[in-house]
């Protein structure tokens, strides 16, 4: 038998990221920063309370998916139904939507990496005068309600439909716009912790051209910001309902809503899976971001 029940037990999956990071910081190196770091006991209380808050709905959802219609008896039938060829047509919309959403995810992340990131780097390193403008432009979408945005998008998409077609992937442009603030913030925060101009100048003085400066010095130092920015973009795409609904596209969210009306059990299973997916993404990104370094506050 293990001794203390809560002491060494890992936190529920949903919580493991911030908890682990906080734990490592307190335990490993920054004991001296007592002013900023809560005590172990406080930390544990916060962990347990927030853990319960997260876990209860998740457990309830799981329990719901395991119930038989009417009787409430335990059954795995709903999980089986997903793979039942006879019922495949029931879930067709959802799978199409899921597929569309994943394509839009990839495209939106590409927009962030190939459009936003270079724009931010150029503003930071070459054209500091436009930095403020870029910030306003990037944060603007958060101030406009999505429904209002959609009203503007409708005529744009009518034109777009004539040139690019009306395939679901074209949603990536609209979602790219609404994910801008979420994609912008982490990178901009990361930039503000670095003196990138000096680092880039140092690299260039040491013989690195612009490409190698960006590749060897700028990007590695922005890794954390870029990763969180991509994660937030993905979660915006997976959570986006309004635009897809009003522009008559089937995405994961609209598919889920449709399914909810005919088969709430399977809809809940997919909702759970989606949550699990995002949590996994979070784990991947936070471990990838912290490998090989543990930066404390700057000197």
């Amino acid at each position: 038998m293990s001794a203390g029940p809560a002491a060494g037990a890992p936190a529920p999956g949903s919580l493991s990221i911030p908890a682990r990071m906080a734990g490592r910081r307190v335990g490993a190196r920054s004991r001296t920063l007592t002013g900023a770091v809560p005590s172990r006991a406080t930390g544990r209380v916060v962990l347990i309370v927030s853990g319960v808050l997260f876990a209860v709905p998740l457990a309830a959802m799981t329990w719901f998916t395991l119930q038989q219609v009417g009787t409430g008896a335990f059954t795995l039938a709903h999980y089986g139904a997903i793979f039942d060829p006879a019922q495949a047509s029931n879930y067709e919309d959802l799978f199409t939507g899921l597929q569309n959403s994943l394509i839009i995810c990839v495209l939106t992340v590409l927009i962030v990496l190939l459009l936003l990131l270079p724009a931010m780097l150029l503003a930071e390193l070459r054209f500091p005068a436009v930095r403020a403008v870029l910030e306003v432009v990037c944060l603007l979408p958060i101030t406009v309600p999505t429904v209002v945005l959609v009203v503007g998008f409708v005529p744009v998409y009518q034109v777009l439909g004539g040139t690019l077609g009306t395939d679901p992937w074209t949603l990536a442009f609209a979602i790219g716009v609404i994910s801008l603030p979420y994609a912008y913030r982490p990178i901009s925060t990361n930039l503000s912790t670095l003196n990138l101009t000096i680092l880039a100048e140092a690299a260039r003085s040491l013989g690195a051209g612009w490409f190698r400066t960006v590749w060897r010095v700028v990007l590695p130092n922005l890794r954390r910001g870029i990763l969180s920015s991509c994660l937030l973009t993905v979660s915006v795409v997976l959570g986006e309902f309004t635009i897809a609904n009003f522009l008559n596209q089937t995405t994961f969210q609209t598919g889920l809503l449709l399914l909810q009306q005919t088969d709430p059990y399977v809809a809940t299973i997919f909702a759970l899976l989606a949550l699990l997916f995002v949590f996994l993404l979070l784990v991947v990104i936070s471990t990838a971001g912290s490998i090989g370094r543990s930066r404390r506050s700057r000197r």
Partner: protein
Amino acid sequence: MTIAPPATESLVQRGTPVELVEVVKDYGTGQRALDGVSLALEPGEFVALLGPSGCGKTTALRALAGLERIDGGHVRIGNEDVEQTPVHRRDIGMVFQSYSLFPHMTVRANVAFGLEMRRVEAKARASRTQEALDLVGLGAMADRYAHQLSGGQQQRVALARALVTRPRVLLLDEPLSALDAKVRVQLREEIRRIQKELGITTLFVTHDQEEALAVADRVAVMNAGRIEQIGTPEELYLRPASPFVADFVGLSNRLPGELAGGTVTVHGVRLPAIAAGVADGPVTAFVRPEDLGFGAEGLPATVVATSFLGAMRRTTVRLAADDALVAVQHEVGSRFGTGDAVQVAFLGRPVAVGGR
């Protein structure tokens, strides 16, 4: 028996001449940041560029580095015009004012970066990196990250990183200004030692005149985008070419005088004048505190304050003649109390003068 070669052998060089010729930089704000700056560094020479903030000294260094485009004139490294050469091909080493180590790399990787960019093969890279780190006394810290080092150590690593590629010129942009006073003095001595040992042509930008005078072979004093005077520290101090230099380098009392034929008359006392290009007539004489003393005869004055400076004492007095405050430097032994009546005497040394 073998004799180990000196540790820094591969970093020693013969020095490269470096020159700024009539360099102009105009941001279009009315005043030119560089207004025809000419400065020639001999091979292996250590020149300090000294001036108040905003005088253009950093711009001049950045123009030499290629970090700033110039609007006129020439930049020559090794007798070759490099205005069109981008920074990364100018073969320079640079240390910045703020800490500039790459935070995601170890000290070793930081220092090796320049060699890697020059595609030096791994084995030579490792040994040269170690050598450069040993040179700055941080051979044992190769596996640390920048945030695990003190400010002084970070600047040492930055110095090693700048030197490891054997650049043709070393550019130091106020590398000491972020450090504590004690570390600052220590590190400047070390920079000087290393520079001499390696024989690398070096341009050192600073706003601290004491620093400039202490380490440089020659000092160029800049003001408002122009170089006012270039000379050895002694020349600058003893024969300032302009009122600005007299005022900026060292401490001076500004006293009203009358210039006539190479002699300036201050409060009725005739002194030899250093007055190149100043017309006869009313002038300001820049009298150093050490060119004044207390005696039985002289200008009557009242002691206002006195401060102990270690090896000497500086006493501020108010002249009875015109109520001007004047600093007098003298030996520690003689002490005065506030309000004491004293006589201030000129020691007869030449004084710099400028237009009033």
